[in-house]
C-alpha cells in the first residue's frame, strides 16, 4: 500500500541510518551516492513499483523490474529491499562479510531476493534494463522496467549505446533515472569529465526527459507519475534527479569525499544524531 509523504520520510531516514551503520560495520562501502538516491529509491519501492517480495522471481514475470546500474550503491539498495520486505532487516548486518548474500556489489549468485542482475562494473545496467524492457514488450507483459544510473557512470560510452537502442526499439516501458548529484570519486563531475548538460544530451538522444528534485517527495512522486504517463508514446523516459551526495548529514553533504569513505565512530554518532531515530528501528 502506498505510503504518505510523512511515512516515506520516516522510511528514508531509517534507510540513511542503515546506510551509515552498514558501511561503518563493514568498514567499507559507498555512503555518498547511497544517500543522494535514498529518497528516490524509497519512493520507487514503496509507492511506484508494481512488485511483491513474497512472489519475487528473477524472471520478473508480471511485475516491474529494477536494475541498479551504479552497482556501488548497494547500501541504499539493500536497505530499501530489506525495509520493503525482500529479506530480513537483520541481514543488513552481514553487508560485505564473507559468505553474505549482501555482496559489495549486487550479485545473483547468493540468492538474494530482489536482485535481477549483477552490476558494479559501470555503464552496463542500462543495457540489461533495455533487454528486460524489450523482452517484456515481446511477451506482452505490461509492466515497467526501472534503472538507476549515476551521473559519473554516464561517462561510460555504453550508457549512450543503450540510449540509442532504447529509442530505436521504442522502449516506452523503460524508465531510466540518473542520480545527478554532480560528484564522483575524484571530484565534481564537471572537473573530472566536463559531462555537461545531461538534460540536453538525453533530449538530443530522443528520450523523454524529466528533471526533478530528488529530495522532495512531492516532486518525486509527481515525476514518477509523469514518467509512467509516457507509456504508449513510443519513447523511453529519463528522469534526471537533482540530488546531493551525502544528503541528510551536514558534514557529508555536497562533497565527493564521501563517495567511498566510511565515517569514524564519533562521526557516525554525530550523523545518527542528526538523522534522528525512527519507529522502524535499526537492524
Amino acid at each position: 500500500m502506498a505510503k504518505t509523504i510523512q511515512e516515506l520520510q520516516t522510511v528514508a531516514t531509517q534507510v540513511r541510518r542503515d546506510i551509515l551503520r552498514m558501511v561503518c560495520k563493514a568498514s567499507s562501502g559507498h555512503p555518498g551516492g547511497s544517500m543522494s538516491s535514498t529518497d528516490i529509491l524509497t519512493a520507487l519501492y514503496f509507492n511506484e513499483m508494481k512488485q511483491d517480495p513474497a512472489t519475487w522471481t528473477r524472471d520478473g514475470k508480471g511485475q516491474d523490474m529494477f536494475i541498479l546500474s551504479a552497482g556501488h550503491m548497494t547500501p541504499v539498495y539493500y536497505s530499501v529491499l530489506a525495509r520493503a520486505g525482500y529479506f530480513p532487516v537483520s541481514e543488513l548486518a552481514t553487508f560485505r562479510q564473507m559468505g553474505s548474500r549482501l555482496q559489495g556489489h549486487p550479485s545473483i549468485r547468493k540468492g538474494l531476493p530482489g536482485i535481477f542482475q549483477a552490476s558494479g562494473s559501470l555503464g552496463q545496467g542500462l543495457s540489461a534494463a533495455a533487454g528486460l524492457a524489450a523482452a517484456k514488450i515481446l511477451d506482452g507483459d505490461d509492466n515497467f522496467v526501472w534503472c538507476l544510473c549515476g551521473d559519473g557512470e554516464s561517462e561510460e560510452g555504453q550508457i549512450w549505446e543503450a540510449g540509442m537502442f532504447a529509442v530505436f526499439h521504442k522502449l516506452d516501458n523503460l524508465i531510466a533515472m540518473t542520480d545527478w548529484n554532480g560528484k564522483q570519486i575524484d571530484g565534481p563531475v564537471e572537473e573530472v569529465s566536463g559531462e555537461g548538460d545531461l538534460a540536453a544530451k538525453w533530449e538530443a538522444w530522443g528520450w523523454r526527459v524529466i528533471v526533478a528534485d530528488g529530495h522532495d517527495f512531492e516532486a518525486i512522486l509527481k515525476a514518477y507519475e509523469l514518467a509512467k504517463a509516457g507509456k504508449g508514446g513510443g519513447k523511453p523516459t529519463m528522469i534526471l534527479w537533482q540530488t546531493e551526495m551525502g544528503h541528510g548529514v551536514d558534514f557529508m553533504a555536497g562533497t565527493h569525499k564521501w563517495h567511498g569513505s566510511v565515517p569514524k565512530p564519533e562521526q557516525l554518532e554525530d550523523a545518527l544524531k542528526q538523522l534522528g531515530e525512527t519507529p522502524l528501528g535499526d537492524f
Partner: protein
Amino acid sequence: MKKYIDSGKKDTRSGFGAGLLKAGEANPRVVALTADLKGSLKMDSFAAAFPERFFQCGIAEANMVGVAAGMAITGKIPFIGSFAEFVTGRVYDQIRQEVSYGNTNVKIASSHAGITLGEDGATHQTMEDLALMRALPGMVVLNPCDYNQTVQATLAAAAYEGPVYLRFGRPSVPNFTDPEEPFVIGKALVLNEGKDVTLIATGHTVWEALQAAEALEADGISAEVIDIATIKPLDVDAIVASAAKTGAVVVAEEHNMAGGLGEAVAGVLAAKRPTPVEYVNGEDRFGQSGTPSALMAAYGLDAPHIAAAARKAIGRK
C-alpha cells in the same frame, strides 16, 4: 583407417545460420541479436522467419551483450552474433559481468574466428578468443569443425541452460561429419583410431588433422584423430585414454599458444598422464592479410605441419 569424404565445401557460419533457424522454429524463446553483421553471421533466414524476435543493435557490441543478458533474465534464449574479436576482446568485461558472473542464458555466436578470416587482416583476426572465454568461470566453449557439426552445435547450445561461447568461421571448408550426429557438449569425438600418435584438433584444423593422418598412414604411422568440438568442459578422459594408448600427442588449433587448446591439453596430461606434446598453433603472433588457405600454410596450421609435428612427437617417446 576411416576415410572421410568432403560432401562439398561450406562455411561453418552458414551452419550456424541454419542451426539458428532450426532452434528458432523449435523454441519460441530463441531470439537473435546482431551488431550490424546480420548477413555476415547468416542470420537472414532467422530474421525473415521471426522478425519480432530479431534485434538489430547497430555497431554497439557492448550494449548488445547487456541487452541479451536482460532478455535472458526474462526467459529468452538470446544468440548474439558478431565477429569473434568483437564478441570477445571488445566486450570481455560485459561478458564477464552480464553473462558469466550474471549467469545468464546467453549464446555468444562468434564468427570469422581465427586467421582464416583472411584478407581483412590482423585487426579482425582474433587468435586469442578461446583464451579469454576459457578463463571465464562456467563458460561453455564450443568450436565445431564443419558445417554439419556447427548446425548441431548451435542446436545443442540452444538446448543447454547457461552461457555458451560458440566459435565458427568465415571460409568454405570441407563438410565431412555426419549431419545426423547429435552434438554432445563435453564429448570428444574419436574420428580415427590409431596407435602411434594422437592428433587432437578443433575447428578448421580437424580436417587438416585427418589429411595429416592419411599422409602419416602412407608412411606406416598409425594416427588417432580426436575432434575436440567442446574446448570447455574438456573431455579429459578421452584425452588421457588416447595419450595412454599412443604415447605421443599433437594439438592443432587456429589460435595462439597462450590459453588455447594446446595449453589445456598439456595441463591435463601433465597432471594425469605425462606425455610428449607438440603444438600446431599461431604461437605468439598476429595474423596478416591473405587468403585463408595461404595463411593456414604460412602460419603452420595445415596438414603438412601437423604431420611434421606428429613425427617429432613420436621421436620424443
